[in-house]
């Protein structure tokens, strides 16, 4: 029983981690309507910077948030401005897909060039200390990620719902042309949204770096699951991504324990394919997307 509870809790914590990675992805998709295949590499970049700051300056990894988040915002905004925006009017999807796939390939290999194939371990400053909660235990770092994910979801919801910029973002997400006619500066909103999505993954990177070893291909590892989460939660839905992440976290943890750790990825992607094929609008609600915040 304790084992089961522990597996469940591990699943939830893993879910929190998937959520914080996926929120930025779903935000960008919901607004800009572009699937950012380089999202995982944004995470990787953020983790490497966190590692650099922590090891070179000896700071607590969480302190690097001051640098990493704005840096990632800038990276996201630049990506939108220089790469995606010129392609917004392209007739074929393949152009946009290849653009971010190209960015992803370039970033992975650039990291390989700079940092080599070795693994970079960010000092964990006690974030890997287990806390006992009744019969089960959890790492402090994991718990912080979980809490941060919840705060991020709520903060984004409030921002999108109540602020003037948030309203403009939702208007653009619903109907780009109509929003433009109402005087919304659509290209600026896109740049802002892409930056915001990237900043979210920057936050994720800071939180994840002390727990996971950083390497050039870490992004691929996380992003594939993030895609699963985003589709499961309904594309563009932030709360959907959060709950989708919890589901995938639990599935991952349970199947890893009961079916075999080498097959859990097959289970997760199997579910992904079933959702894509049977219910592409996602598990949670028909239209719980950015344009229909409730």
């Amino acid at each position, binding site marked *: 029983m304790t084992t089961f509870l522990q597996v469940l809790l591990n699943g939830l914590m893993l879910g929190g981690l998937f959520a914080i990675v996926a929120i930025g992805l779903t935000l960008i998709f919901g607004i800009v309507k572009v699937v950012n295949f380089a999202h995982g590499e944004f995470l990787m970049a953020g983790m490497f910077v966190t590692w650099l700051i922590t090891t070179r300056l000896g700071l607590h990894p969480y302190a690097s948030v001051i640098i990493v988040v704005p840096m990632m915002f800038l990276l996201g905004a630049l990506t939108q401005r220089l790469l995606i925006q010129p392609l917004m009017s392209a007739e074929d*999807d393949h152009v946009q897909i290849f653009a971010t*796939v*190209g960015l992803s*390939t*370039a970033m992975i*290999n650039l990291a390989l060039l700079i940092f080599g194939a070795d693994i970079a371990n960010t000092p964990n400053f006690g974030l890997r200390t287990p806390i006992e909660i009744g019969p089960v235990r959890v790492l402090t770092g994991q718990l912080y990620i979980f809490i941060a994910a919840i705060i991020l979801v709520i903060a984004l919801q409030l921002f999108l719902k109540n602020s003037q910029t948030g309203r403009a973002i939702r208007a653009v997400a619903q109907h780009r042309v109509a929003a433009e006619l109402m005087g919304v500066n659509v290209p600026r909103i896109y740049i802002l949204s892409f930056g915001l999505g990237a900043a979210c993954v920057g936050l994720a990177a800071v939180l994840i770096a002390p727990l996971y070893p950083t390497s050039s291909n870490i992004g691929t590892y996380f992003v594939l699951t993030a*895609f699963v989460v985003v589709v499961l939660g309904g594309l563009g839905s932030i709360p959907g991504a959060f709950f989708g992440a919890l589901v995938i976290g639990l599935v991952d943890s349970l199947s890893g324990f009961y079916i075999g750790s080498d097959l859990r*990825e*097959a289970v997760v992607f199997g579910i992904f*394919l079933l959702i894509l094929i049977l219910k592409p609008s996602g598990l949670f609600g028909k239209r719980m997307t950015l344009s229909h915040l409730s």
Partner: protein
Amino acid sequence: MSISDIQSGTGTKTRNLSWPQIAFGVLLASLLLIPLGIDNAFVSHVFITICLFAALSTAWNIVGGFAGQLSLGHAVFYGIGGYAGVILFNLGVTPWIGMFVGAAVAAVVGMLISYPCFRLRGPFYTLASIAFLEVIRVLSLHFKDLTGGATGLMIDLRLGWTWMVFRERWPSLLIVFGMLLLTLAVSWAIRRSRLGFYLVATRERESAARAAGVRTVRVRLIAVAISSALCAMLGTFHAMYLTFIEPAAMFALAFSIQIAMFALIGGIGTVAGPLLGAALLVPITEWARASLGSSALGLHGFVYGIVLIVCVLFMPNGIMGVIKRFSHKKAKAADEPAQTETDPIIAPASAFATPDPDRPGIGQDILKVENLNKHFGGLYVTRDVNFTLREGEVLGLIGPNGAGKTTLFNMISGFLAPDEGKVSVRGLDGQFHQPNNPADFAALGMGRTFQIVQPFAAMTVEENIMVGAFYRHPDEKDAREAARETAWRMGLGPLLNAEARGLTIGGLKRLEVARVMAMQPRVLLLDEVMAGINQTDVRRAIDLMLSIRDTGVSIIAIEHVMQAVMSLSDRVIVLASGEVIAEGRPQDVVRDPQVVEAYLGKEFAHAHA
């Protein structure tokens, strides 16, 4: 992304080779002759790699380019071929047989995983293809007994042609070059054939393709099967060349991306593009890898990524796009036909049937619509609609906006299933059939146009019409001939080689009719073909429809242009709020108080009462 890449030769009857074709031939020959001439192990290795990637990319392009299904999971098929080859090799079966076993398995797997994914669009299809790749990679790691798991599989040492394993490089080069030629030939044949046109048509506009009688799922499954089988055969070859395989290398995402990337850089959807892309990029990266060694770990991948981004931003149609633009400019400068499309040259007299008194009489019923009901939620779009259409008759279908006319059309062409009621069409066998999908309707001789025009934008006018013509003429030459003839009849003759996306609305409407006429339908459903075109064009369109009628085709026309309705229709049906409120001769129907009320409201009807 037009499908006419090396078009210069096909347009004219004389098969003069154009300079791009000659250049392509020289490039192809040099892939074999240079390494054989230099006879250096490294050079040979580079050229083998070029041929391999060019062939893989060409095979990918059948699905990714022609069919527009952007797969980033094609390593699955390559891997299946590799594993089938090695596993059978170690059981004592020659890879010459193994590659066909692998091809068969890959074709089946390809069809199985693609079938449920066809409704996914754009990035979602791509994501699904990646997910399948991951699942298969994980499974291949798990089933160690079969695949050797993460440690991989080594082939037993057996040399010679029987085993496809050699000490020297040149036999491998010969084999892979032969496979490249085969793949290019297959790709070229598909591009020119009915299958190729159907694939591109489906990519450009699925519903229009279905209306043209294309069984869209079937053609894409065929494309997937061919593409995956070819990839698997190349996988078998490569496994023999490497003599060692492992899941991480055989089912790699990066590998899949590379395959797709060469096609994009060379020119996606073209026959020659993938080869150009591979021939350009492989040598650079192989050289970098060899000369810079491990100090430049990741360099070639970085270059790939940057090239991909630059290519997408500045030449999205790849090298072929640049070549095409260049050769077009030259052609344009030479002679530009000074015809505007609003005033087309009148068609050759022979092709134009004049509306004459010996119009075939109105015959038996050909289409029966009984108790057709359709509702979306609580809203009834059609309610108990009944009517028949007789052979050679022109039936006008009018009614205010939102009356359910287009929904009715969708139900009598198989695009929408009615909730209740039935639609039956008399076939050539004299029996009534109840088809239930667009392709079956088309097979019974029903053709339709769309209110919102649906051209295959990247195709020329001629190619658009050919998609329809292929329905009667499986052979490319006959279809082209038939398409040209139809184009002249529809006043589109001077625009045959113009891209459909450049036409005006009037031209597009005519193209829409021309495409369906090329199918030689027995029943023609026309959805507002005269809306938004000018007076001259309306008059011409009326003449055209009369000439179509006089060939014995039955027509149902949704139309708001009353001039056309009055002068064309033998009978008119008025639909309002989903119900038939009047039916009869046009002169009578327009005076019907109920009709006047439906169009203009009660007050108007009272005022004139």
